[in-house]
C-alpha cells in the first residue's frame, strides 16, 4: 500500500485536479497530461527557471511564473495556454534560434531534438529576428564526446548534472549575457580535462545537438535525459528501501 501523500486542489486551464503537496505546477500539469513546454527543466536536477518557456499565468498574480519552480498552493488557478503566453513562448524560441546556429538539416539531433520539438509545438514556422551567426569553436577533443557551442542554448542541464549528480563540476558558464558560453575547466579543450570522469551524463541530458557522441552523423544522436531522474531515485535508494519495507 502506497503511503498517503497530502494533496491540494488546484485548477489548471479550467480543469480541477489534485496536486501533490510540495510538487511544482509543471510536475502536476505533466502528471495530468497538460503540456507546458520547457527546455532547461530536467526532472532530477534543481530548477533554474532560465529558459522561461514554462511561464504560466497564476490568478491574482501580476507576474508570470515559471511552472518548473512554482510550488502548488491550495486553490491555485493556473493558465498554461493563452494567446499572450503562446506569443511569448514563440518569441523566446525565435530568440534562441536566432542566437545560435541551429541548422536542423545538418544536426546530429535532427528529428530527436527537444528544441526542434518545442518549436513545432509552439508554432514557430519562421524566425523574425536577426540571425546572430556566432562563430564558436567546436570542441571535438574528447575521445568520446563532442561539444558544439553553436547549438547550445545555455539551459545549463550539463552544468547541473555534472555538479549535482556526478559531483565533478567539469562544466560551468563563463562570461555573461550574449557572450555567455559553456566551458570545461579553465576553458581548455575538453579532451585535456583533468576533472572529467567520462560519465556522459552531460551528453545524456542535452536537449539539443550541442553535446553528442563522437561519430554521430546527421539525425543519429539519441539523448537519454530521462535517465537522470532514475539515477537520482536510485541514489536516494528509493527502490531498495521500498523493498525493505515490504
Amino acid at each position: 500500500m502506497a503511503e498517503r501523500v497530502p494533496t491540494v486542489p488546484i485548477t489548471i486551464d479550467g480543469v480541477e485536479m489534485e496536486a501533490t503537496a510540495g510538487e511544482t505546477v509543471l510536475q502536476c500539469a505533466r502528471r495530468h497530461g497538460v503540456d507546458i513546454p520547457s527546455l532547461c527543466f530536467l526532472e532530477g536536477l534543481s530548477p533554474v527557471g532560465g529558459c522561461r518557456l514554462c511561464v504560466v499565468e497564476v490568478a491574482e498574480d501580476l507576474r508570470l511564473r515559471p511552472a518548473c519552480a512554482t510550488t502548488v498552493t491550495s486553490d491555485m488557478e493556473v493558465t498554461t495556454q493563452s494567446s499572450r503566453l503562446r506569443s511569448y513562448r514563440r518569441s523566446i524560441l525565435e530568440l534562441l534560434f536566432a542566437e545560435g546556429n541551429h541548422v536542423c538539416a545538418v544536426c546530429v539531433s535532427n528529428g530527436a531534438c527537444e528544441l526542434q520539438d518545442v518549436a513545432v509545438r509552439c508554432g514557430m514556422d519562421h524566425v523574425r529576428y536577426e540571425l546572430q551567426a556566432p562563430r564558436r569553436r567546436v570542441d571535438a577533443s574528447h575521445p568520446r564526446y563532442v561539444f558544439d557551442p553553436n547549438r547550445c542554448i545555455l539551459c545549463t542541464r550539463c552544468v547541473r548534472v555534472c555538479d549535482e549528480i556526478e559531483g565533478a563540476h567539469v562544466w560551468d558558464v563563463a562570461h555573461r549575457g550574449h557572450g555567455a558560453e559553456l566551458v570545461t575547466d579553465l576553458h581548455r579543450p575538453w579532451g585535456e580535462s583533468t576533472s572529467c570522469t567520462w560519465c556522459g551524463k552531460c551528453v545524456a541530458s542535452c536537449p539539443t545537438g550541442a553535446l553528442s557522441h563522437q561519430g554521430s552523423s546527421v539525425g543519429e544522436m539519441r539523448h537519454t535525459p530521462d535517465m537522470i531522474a532514475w539515477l537520482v531515485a536510485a541514489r536516494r535508494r528509493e527502490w531498495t528501501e521500498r523493498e525493505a519495507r515490504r
Partner: protein
Amino acid sequence: MSDTALEAGASASGSRHTVDPGRPEHPSGDDRFALVDTHLRRVHDAQDQLIETLHVAQDVFGFLSDDVLLYVARALRLPPSMVYGVATFYHLFTFEPPGEHTCTVCTGTACFVKGADDIVADVATAHGVHVGDTSADGRLTLRTARCLGSCGLAPVVVLDGVVHGHQSPSGALALLDGELGGVR
C-alpha cells in the same frame, strides 16, 4: 589625482611579504604568489573569498593568467571551471597583460549625453585599437567604464589613473599624444 579603480593594476613591486614557509613554493619560483598566499591565510582559505582573492591576484600580477587562476582554484579547493566562470563574469578582471598606457573613457549616461561615444571612436581610430584591447605595438589599452561617478565633469577620460574632465575628442587625442609621444 587617482581615486579610481582604474589604477588597480598597480604595483607588484609594493611591499614584499616574506614567503610563508608553511606553503610550498610555487613551482614557477615566482615569489609574487606569496602575496596571494598572505591574503589566503588571512581569510582562512574561505571559498566565499574567491572574488577578493582574484582582486588580490590581479593587483599582484596585473592580469589573471591560467596559471594564477589554477593556483587560486587549488588553494580554495574550487573546480577550475567555477573559478574561470566567476573571473570572466566580472568586467574588472582581465586575462591579458595591459598595454604600457591605459586610457579609459567613461560611457555613463552623463558622459554619453556629452559625446563620450565620439571620444571612444576617435581614440580607437587614431590608435588602431578596439575597445577592451591593446594596440598592436602594446603601447595603449583602450577601455570604457560604466560611470565613474564624476558626472559633473562629463565627459571624463582617465589616462593611466589620472582623471581628466570636460574632454573632447581632440582634447583626448592631444592628451594621449602628450603621454605616448604622438601617433606613429
